[in-house]
């Protein structure tokens, strides 16, 4: 029972205490402080447990809860401790952030109960070592997040989003249950340790893989099944949607890795598994970012971006599976490390983005980007921290987003010839898709930062915005610092993550990473590729400082006057580019994918050519909802209607039914 697993269980118990606290503390202030205090402690403990688990190695434990003949098994191996680290690293800042964010909420009890339960569910899933515990905590996570999504259930939008969310979560749960059942049939017992040793036939292995893939894919928001994500995340309170986007999607990725890599015999994948994951990853990345570009609701845009980043993680995983199948353990380890690196990166910068969006929502009261603008003058701190997150997510050098995308590119570029022509074409093509997604992400975040923070305020709501309090600033500062550190010192973090491929693929990157000292990141060997973030940053700072000092001779101040705009000074706020117009070129280029519906009506009272007012709105529907969810919904209702007619007949019909049933039974069985 080493320290790591004790710390992990301490984190879980902290979350449990936090869940029970609201029953004692009644008034909102006490509940809020209790909630953020206990969750912060839980986050800190989870982080330390993760780091200890990675350094000292894991341990297993059996708790006396659960079914009599199958108690709860708990395991903290390298994979679990890494994801504990991910959960903890975002939970700590979000907990601090919540202290400020929930300041003026009156009805807090349901949030104060279900948020810790949500955290407990995630930690439980990461730590579980048998199918029953996994499913128990998995569904606990889904149900508690459902209650969080419907926290503000006054508006209809929350309720509809909540319903779809719960339905998809339940479907995912059932699919995962299916895959566990298949593994149970092969292993004869629910414990993961038994499932690992069990020899499973290729057919049933593929069945389990597909079930787990679709189940975890639905929960992670992979493209065809992602319809619920852009509905559910924006309506939840911002600190919760930070947790949901930041961590819950990662727990789904954890589940996928645990089931498909760890339980089904690590390393011996079939080739089409990797290809399928790669294809799903690239299509998610592209669709996610393309749909994100067309949104003008800030949090809905960020939710779509989560789909893109999950796609990037899946590209890393898919490459690693392919390479593992074709017998390149070192490269497969690199792919896995790239995916894990992007997991923690995404948790951090997406958490920061949602917290920033929460801060904007908190002070302006709206999520619509069309009514924001010029907030950098009224919310300087939030703007600066939001900019850090934008740089990280757009994968730009000094920050962490670039390191993980760079590693994924290296895996793709260095993948030697694999199998037939089809495969050799897919890998570079998906690398190109990754590049396109990265660049479009940069476009999208220029739009977000530009429209929200820069330029003139587009509404009086934006003008009356105020800077957020210190709690929220600290809550946002922590992930920003982490983003910079992860971006500058990858060589220190990768050995920590390297334990996971050692566990799963029995291959390690350790020696090649340290080949060139802590400054240079050289994944395979120095001749292949190397990148040194610290030198880049120092170089830029030196050159920048030099240029700034040289160009500032004594006493030359900057004269402020009216903006130039080609000599047309009276420009009002409506003449700026806003969210819809910024993405207009892309809407034209990718018109085939979007199928946007534009409505334009112009009032002309005076003369045919003189327009009084022009109203223009564009709506881009989500393909998954239109072509997947609605048809299934209509089909069920249609069958239900048919059945309903059966219930409106008189007593004679029912007597006849019984009569026919008895005759049928007798005829068949005698």
């Amino acid at each position, binding site marked *: 029972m080493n320290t790591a697993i004790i710390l992990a269980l301490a984190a879980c118990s902290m979350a449990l205490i936090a869940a029970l606290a609201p029953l004692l503390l009644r008034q909102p202030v006490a509940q809020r402080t209790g909630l953020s205090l206990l969750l912060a402690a839980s986050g800190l403990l989870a982080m330390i447990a993760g780091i200890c688990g990675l350094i000292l190695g894991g341990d297993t434990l059996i708790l006396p809860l659960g079914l009599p003949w199958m108690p709860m098994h708990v395991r903290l191996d390298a994979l679990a401790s890494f994801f504990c680290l991910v959960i903890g690293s975002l939970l700590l800042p979000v907990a601090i952030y919540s202290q400020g964010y929930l300041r003026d909420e009156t009805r807090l009890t349901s949030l104060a109960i279900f948020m810790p339960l949500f955290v407990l569910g995630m930690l439980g899933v990461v730590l579980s070592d048998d199918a029953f515990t996994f499913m128990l*905590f998995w569904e606990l996570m889904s149900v508690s997040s459902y209650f969080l999504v419907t926290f503000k*259930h006054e508006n209809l939008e*929350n309720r509809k989003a909540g319903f779809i969310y719960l339905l998809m979560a339940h479907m995912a749960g059932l699919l995962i249950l299916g895959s566990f059942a298949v593994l149970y049939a092969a292993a004869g017992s629910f414990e993961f340790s038994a499932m690992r040793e069990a020899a499973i036939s290729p057919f049933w292995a593929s069945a389990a893989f597909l079930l787990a893939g679709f189940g975890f894919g639905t929960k992670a928001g992979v493209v065809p099944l992602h319809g619920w994500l852009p509905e559910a995340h924006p309506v939840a309170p911002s600190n919760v949607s930070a947790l949901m986007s930041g961590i819950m999607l990662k727990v789904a990725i954890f589940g996928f890795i645990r089931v498909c890599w760890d339980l089904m015999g690590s390393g011996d994948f079939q080739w089409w598994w990797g290809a399928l994951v790669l294809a799903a990853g690239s299509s998610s990345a592209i669709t996610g970012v393309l749909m994100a570009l067309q949104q003008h609701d800030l949090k809905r845009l960020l939710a779509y971006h989560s789909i893109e980043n999950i796609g990037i993680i899946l590209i890393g995983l898919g490459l690693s599976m392919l390479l593992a199948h074709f017998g390149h353990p070192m490269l497969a380890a690199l792919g896995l490390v790239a995916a894990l690196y992007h997991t923690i990166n995404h948790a951090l910068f997406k958490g920061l983005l949602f917290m920033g969006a929460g801060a904007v929502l908190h002070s302006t009261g709206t999520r619509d980007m069309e009514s924001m603008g010029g907030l950098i003058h009224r919310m300087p701190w939030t703007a600066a921290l939001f900019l850090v997150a934008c740089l990280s997510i757009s994968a730009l050098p000094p920050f962490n987003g670039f390191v993980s995308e760079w590693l994924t590119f290296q895996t793709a570029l260095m993948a030697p010839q694999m199998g037939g022509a089809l495969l050799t074409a897919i890998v570079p093509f998906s690398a190109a898709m990754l590049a396109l997604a990265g660049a479009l992400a940069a476009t999208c975040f220029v739009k977000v930062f530009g429209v929200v923070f820069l330029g003139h305020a587009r509404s009086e709501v934006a003008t009356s915005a105020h800077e957020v309090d210190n709690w929220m600033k600290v809550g946002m500062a922590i992930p920003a610092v982490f983003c910079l550190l992860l971006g500058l010192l990858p060589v220190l973090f990768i050995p920590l993550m390297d334990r996971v491929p050692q566990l799963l693929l029995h291959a390690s990157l350790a020696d090649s990473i340290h080949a060139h000292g802590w400054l240079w990141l050289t994944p395979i060997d120095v001749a292949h590729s190397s990148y040194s973030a610290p030198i880049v940053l120092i170089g830029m700072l030196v050159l920048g400082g030099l240029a700034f000092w040289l160009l500032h001779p004594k006493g030359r101040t900057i004269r402020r006057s009216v903006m130039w705009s080609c000599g047309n000074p009276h420009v009002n706020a409506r003449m700026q580019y806003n969210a819809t117009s910024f993405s207009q070129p892309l809407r034209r280029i990718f018109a085939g994918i979007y199928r946007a519906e534009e409505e334009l009506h112009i009032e002309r009272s005076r003369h045919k050519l003189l327009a009084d007012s022009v109203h223009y709105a564009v709506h881009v529907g989500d393909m998954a909802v239109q072509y997947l969810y609605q048809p299934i919904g209509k089909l069920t209702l249609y069958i239900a209607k048919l*059945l309903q007619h059966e219930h409106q007949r008189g007593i004679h019909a029912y007597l006849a039914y*019984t009569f026919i049933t008895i005759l049928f*039974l007798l005829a068949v069985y005698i």
Partner: protein
Amino acid sequence: MNLFLATLLSPLLGGLLLALINNPRLAARLNVVTGISTFIFSVLLALEVLGVKSVDAMDGWFHLDAYNVFLVVLTAFVGMTTTIFSGPYMRHELENGRVNERRLRLYHSMFQLFQFGMLLGFTTNNIGVLWVSLELATLATVLLVSLYRTPASIAAAWKYFILCGMGIALALFGTVLVFFTSSAVLGHGNEALNWTALYAHAAQLDPAVMSIAFCFLMVGYGTKVGLAPMHAWLPDAHGEGPTPVSAVLSGLLLNLALYALVRCKMLVDGSTGTEMAGHIMMGFGLLSLAVSALSLHKQRDIKRMFSFSSIEHMALMTFAFGIGTSLATFAALLHMTVHSLVKSAIFFTVGHAAQAMGTQKMAEIRGLIRHHPGIGWGLLVGVAAIAGFPPFGVFTSEFLIFTAALESYPWTTVPLLLGLLVAMAGLFRFVQPMVYGETPDYAKHVHVNMTPVYIHLSLALLLGLAIPGFLADWYHQAAALITMVAPSAGGNA
């Protein structure tokens, strides 16, 4: 043996006494006292029986073993909590003039008579007396369903009476057929109708007659369990009757019918040696799951909707008993317990909700959480429990049913999963708007007694998280008893 008689007679005496008392307040309190006394006696009886594995009383007329003693305790417990709930509920109905003193008296006495019929049915060793007790329970419920004397409730009662009457007649014919073969082996006395004797000589019974008998018994008791396509009476009976009756009806009466069906299955398996009975039950289970899950989507009345949910869960239990392995039977017994607890809790909350909003039409019930947090959250958590979300017991039992199904008949897991998903969608489709949103202005304040609901839900929670040791091996004994006779695949675990 006095414990056994006490358990049986206390509801009978209570019923008779209540028939005489006119003052509603006193009657309500006596009703609760009778419920509590029955429960206490049943618990003592259970402790005694468990010590000695099985007990025969009154020279073979009554037989108690691990299987039916657990059902007796469950019936008594849910009966007790329903009496507690029905106190304030019926007083509210009295004030609103939906029921007068005379009919309230009828309600109390019939309620206890129903309870007596249930306990008699579980404890008797004689399949004839089992049929009589079921008939008695049906007659009591007919009067209870038509309590309000509204046109709809009378029509519902009539429909219930005709359909169940016919169903039970078929079951009687099945019993006669069983007696026809058993008298050839065991002679003409009562001996030929006792479960214990029948099991001992199951092999000598004529398989052809037994399979015909099972067909009649299946359709007969199947009607009472509410399996499709004989389920038409259930939604109306639930919809029109007073809520305590619906709670008891779906919580307990269906269990008794299913108990009888499983007894017959054990018998038929013993004599035919084939898996015919199991397959028929699984077929009916899947059909009812499909029908109920789909018709959940098209309901307008809150109680009718939850009655379809009862059909869905009875279908799951029939399917599990049909599989026959000891894991499946364990799961079915657990499901039966948790379903009774959670479904009756839901009906209590629904009763209060309907009274608060003054209507049973789901379109007009809104903003329960805002109106009365107890009702709102109670309903939401109850529906989450019944839909099979952890940490409640329904999730555990559905998980075990699923794995048992996968072990013996893997292809059945697909319709099972689909059915569960569609049912969950249907339930939440209606519950969500009812629970959330702003409170409408026509909502009245109503005196609410939510303690039974909280007791039931916490018990279900306990069953989900960590099933207590004694209850687990209680199920194991019952499962072993049931599968020991059945020739089907040897049960593991």
